């Protein structure tokens, strides 16, 4: 193709001529990275400010009213809390840059060490639960949509909706309690608590996955139903394709893009949901760390864990956006 024809052709294009393809992805990458950086900055600043927003003297609160005054002063100096605020902020950023998250007030261990030790257990739980809920939700949702579309099989629909509403309303830690009671205390099929072997994963993962799977399968169904009423599905039918092909190649990808947006939110809420479930199952993850550090007012540890959770969530969101852009190129040009 010669230069002239391509220039002539590009006149018919919507918007910018030339190099459109590369341009679009470049712009997307730029915009998305920018947003990630801004979000990271807000997160870091928020976690820095947390200790300053606590009313009263945080160190005194952490060490308790009986702690000697010079110990409190020593720890306060150690934490750098006597410096001017901008100085503290700069130090905080510099330390972060070197991967240092400070030292725990109570255990005197580096926060990064504690987190490195406990993060994998939490991440495994969250990822496994996400995979399970997606594997359940998408086929169930699609199947239900096809079975119950346009007012067919009202009873099936009612049963499905009812079940998913009820399951979705039960919080994960309650599932945990219920599962422990049924499958561990009563029948001894799985261990009650702890992280020891594959069997110990079953209950926590189930507890985390059931609710999201129920909610997500409803969303998949609704999205699928909406997609199946779209004009391009009518076009596909006008091509006289088989129903299976229409559902799988024309409807499903569109339904999945919408589901994925919510799936991302779901995954990030799973990360947080592990906090509760870990407590039920005495799971040696970050969840139990953050709770105990909040109750013991171990602020450096709280800061570190909140930061790690936050970064995890931001990375997930970014991944989801990239996946969406690959699946549905339109989302890369929007101002999302």
């Amino acid at each position: 193709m010669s230069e002239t024809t391509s220039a002539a052709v590009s006149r018919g294009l919507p918007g910018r001529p030339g190099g459109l393809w590369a341009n679009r992805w470049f712009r997307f990458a730029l915009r998305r990275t920018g947003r990630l950086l801004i979000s990271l900055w807000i997160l870091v600043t928020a976690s820095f400010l947390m200790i300053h927003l606590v009313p009263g003297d945080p160190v005194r609160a952490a060490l308790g009213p009986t702690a000697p005054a010079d110990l409190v002063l020593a720890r306060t100096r150690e934490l750098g809390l006597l410096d001017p605020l901008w100085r503290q902020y700069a130090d905080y950023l510099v330390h972060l840059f070197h991967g240092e998250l400070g030292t725990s007030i109570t255990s005197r261990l580096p926060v990064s060490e504690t987190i490195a030790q406990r993060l994998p257990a939490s991440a495994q739980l969250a990822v496994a639960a996400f995979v399970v809920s997606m594997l359940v939700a998408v086929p169930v949702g699609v199947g239900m949509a096809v079975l119950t579309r346009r007012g067919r099989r009202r009873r099936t629909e009612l049963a499905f909706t009812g079940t998913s509403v009820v399951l979705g309303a039960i919080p994960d830690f309650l599932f945990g309690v219920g599962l422990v009671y049924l499958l561990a205390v009563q029948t001894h099929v799985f261990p009650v608590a702890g992280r020891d072997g594959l069997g110990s994963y079953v209950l926590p993962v189930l507890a985390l996955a059931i609710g999201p799977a129920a909610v997500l399968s409803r969303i998949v169904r609704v999205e699928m139903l909406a997609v199946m009423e779209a004009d391009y599905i009518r076009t596909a039918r006008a091509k006289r394709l088989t129903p299976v092909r229409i559902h799988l190649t024309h409807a499903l990808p569109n339904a999945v893009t919408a589901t994925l947006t919510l799936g991302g939110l779901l995954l990030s809420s799973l990360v947080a949901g592990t906090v509760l479930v870990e407590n039920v199952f005495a799971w040696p993850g970050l969840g139990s760390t953050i709770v105990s550090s909040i109750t013991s007012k171990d602020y450096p540890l709280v800061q570190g864990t909140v930061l790690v959770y936050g970064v995890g969530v931001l990375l997930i969101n970014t991944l989801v956006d990239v996946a969406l852009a690959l699946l549905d190129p339109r989302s890369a040009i929007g101002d999302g």
Partner: protein
Amino acid sequence: MTVLSFRDVSVRYGSHTVLKGVSLDIAHGEIVGLVGESGSGKSTLARAAVGLAPLAGGRILLDDRPVPTRGRARPVQMVFQDPYSSLDPRMTVGESIAEAMRERLGKQARRAEITRLLALVHLDAARAGDRPGRLSGGQRQRVALARALAARPEVILADEITSALDVSVQGAVLNLVREMRRELDLSMLFISHNLAVVRYVADRVAVMYDGEIVEHGPTTQVLGSPQHEYTRHLLAAVPGAAHRASAGDRASAGNQASVGNQASAENRNGILSPTPKEHT
């Protein structure tokens, strides 16, 4: 003499320039038609005049003073294309009209004014208590006109006010526009993509293409003997044009694409060049 005057008006959205130095005058008691394709900037011009689109350059004057776009008294009013979106579904027809009135009136006076305005657009006073949901598209568009009139405007901007209506209703609204001009001495900018409709109501026509006015003048002159290539192209595309050409009617020679022969295919490719970029 000139009521509303656009002087070198530019509007930019981001890096995209929608209007490129447009100048246009609307005289007292005159209907100026504005034609062009979607994306040519017709609506943006009207929206700029009422402060809904930010000016990047130029001025919009009303009687040689900048058009007020703040405060209660707005002498330039607009009627929109979609009658299903231009009335608040939660408000009665009367409330919608009353909201646009310049001054707070007493209950009695307000009711009388609503009745007067509804009568102007040939609607029964009993309609004042109805919500838009009970009205047809044509009736809603009349209410929208009545609301515009409630502000006692000097100029009304009508943005594609008949294009969402059914053909049997469109005629009635066009008759109403002509009647209002005749009886109320209204000045109006009448925006439409439909040349036949503009021909029917407008005294003068301006043709817009890619953010610029490429031709303007008296309606009969612009539509009868178009000077700019784009205007001719637009006229040739009007449905029924081929029919007229074959009937031996007046038609600017050479530009009529008689359907189906090879020559016309060549010709079409020639015509394609001045078409604006279609925006998705």
